[in-house]
């Protein structure tokens, strides 16, 4: 794991002031100690959730680290008896996150290319609208968006998915990010393609898109992670528990549990909600840099 993370670190380590700093050695030791201590401290909660998921309910409130007895009852409960069971929650989460990722890639790259390269009247004004959407908090949109989707019949049955994906289909962030990336690609390649008689779509598809790999990967990774973890819109738009995503399943499980919470299966659900993002993070860590466009403008 360490190796995988280190090998994709792109930035060289900064040089520590070499002049006259006799304390540098000790400072480094203190820093290592603090980092290990903090790292262990934040590792404990995650480890505790994994351990607890293999405990029995009475054992789950005991402070022994190793489960005694070791049991997979919690997992069996979460996979079969929980309503809806984990496999269905995961399927819903994956389907919604996958769909929102694809729509953001397709719509974001097309619109990003248009705003970066194509000339048409009103382009700057329309781009301002894209930026303005980043300033509108989702909470303001809760009531009107729900009523619009409700009127369109998109709040019941399978249509709930369509309603949710419609709301998540394209974010101003995706367009903004793709546009910024296309702006950095030299124009020569496109012009060569245009002289060869390629149309605008062919130029986009054959020349520009293959060059935009890193930007597409960033949009895909951030969008998938964001939608997988998403809480607010699914809570509003998925009313029927069979359509719940993992975070909603966790909330329902937690809020219905009251005082007799069944911790082991709940911990199993937490593991399953966290694990896919951890795997994604380990493989695509370099794309997880928090983009200013994403975090800085939408909060």
């Amino acid at each position, binding site marked *: 794991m360490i190796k995988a993370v280190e090998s994709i670190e792109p930035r060289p380590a900064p040089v520590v002031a070499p002049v006259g700093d006799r304390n540098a050695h000790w400072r480094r030791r203190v820093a290592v100690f603090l980092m290990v201590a903090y790292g262990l401290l934040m590792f404990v909660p995650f480890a505790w*959730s994994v351990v607890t998921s293999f405990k029995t309910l009475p054992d789950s409130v005991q402070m022994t680290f190793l489960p005694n007895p070791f049991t997979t009852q919690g997992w069996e409960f979460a996979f079969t008896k929980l309503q809806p069971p984990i496999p269905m929650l995961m399927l819903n989460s994956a389907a919604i996150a996958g769909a929102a990722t694809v729509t953001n890639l397709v719509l974001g790259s097309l619109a990003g290319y248009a705003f970066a390269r194509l000339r048409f009247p009103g382009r700057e004004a329309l781009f301002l609208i894209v930026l303005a959407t980043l300033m509108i908090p989702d909470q303001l949109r809760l009531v009107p968006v729900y009523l619009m989707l409700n009127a369109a019949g998109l709040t019941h049955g399978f249509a709930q998915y369509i309603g949710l994906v419609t709301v998540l289909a394209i974010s101003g962030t995706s367009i903004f990010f793709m546009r910024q990336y296309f702006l950095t690609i030299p124009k020569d390649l496109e012009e060569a393609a245009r002289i060869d008689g390629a149309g605008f779509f062919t130029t986009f598809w054959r020349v520009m898109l293959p060059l935009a790999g890193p930007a597409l990967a960033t949009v895909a990774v951030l969008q998938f992670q964001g939608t997988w973890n998403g809480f607010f819109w699914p809570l509003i738009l998925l009313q029927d528990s069979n359509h719940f995503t993992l975070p909603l399943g966790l909330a329902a499980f937690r809020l219905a549990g009251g005082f007799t919470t069944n911790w082991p299966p709940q911990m199993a659900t937490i593991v399953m909600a966290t694990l896919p*993002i951890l795997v994604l993070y380990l493989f695509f860590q370099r794309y997880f840099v928090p983009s200013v466009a994403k975090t800085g403008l939408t909060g």
Partner: protein
Amino acid sequence: MGVIAAARPGSPVTKSKGLAKGREAITGYLFILVPMVLFLVLNIGSIFYSLYISVWHWNIRSGPETLLGTKNYLTALGDPIFQQAVTNTLYYTAVWVPLAMALGLFLAVLVNQKIRGQTFFRAAFYFPAIASSAAITVLWIFLLEPDGLFNAARAALGINPIFALFGYTDSQNWLGNSSTAMNSIIILNAWTTSGTFMLFYLASLQAISQDVYEAAAIDGASGVQAFWSITFPLLKPAHYFVGTVAVIGGLQLFDQAYLAGSVDGSPDNALMTMVLYLYRSAFGGSFDFGYAAAVGIILFVMIFSATLVQRRLFGAAPSW
């Protein structure tokens, strides 16, 4: 292509250039069509629709029933629970923002040291920021149970007398007690978001030239002195940027409050936040959408004014 067209004015090439221009414009509109329609309806349209809904008594089933004018707004502003929600949210923001920023900066300084394995620590410290908020909150609730790991750990460490000084019992119900519930959420969110703030600060730290530190070292400044007199002031743009991001995020606190305190912000409205109040107005039982829309507008005005004030004071976000 442009050169050829210019060289032969009035030739068929010019004509085809005009045609290409038209085609380019049409292609442009087609490429942005779907996003713009969605934005105009679901974002820009939402604001105006919200304003319209907010002046009605509007039931989810029957739609608009009675025209109320500004009554929904006045009812919300006069509701003690709404006022409590505003107080709670401002308290959360006022405490959480500096705490998370300090922790983020502290971690950034740590992982900026030239140490083997620092990339691993960087990656590890950032992970809570990208994990599911629902999963981490439920995990936090589990740890903070009266018979949970946190209470057991402080008993094992023998530090309960310190907690007793503050009036906390050995089996303190952190999230179930109205005096500690919000602080528990503050600590949770300081932990999870500090990873993001760490990366923002790290980028700024690495942009600081090493020369200034060398000069300070020659002048005999210690590491701590150098931090407070050089690093901290030089990070001013980062402080402003992270602070702005944090305040806007803080005013929108919802997930953790809802998961820990349910739709009522239990216990005793201690976890009732502005967004939770909005959610409760719409889906908490009464389904009074006119009222909820009015609450949404009030929230928007508050968040937007906070953004404008900060922009006024500190300038626009660096990316623009």
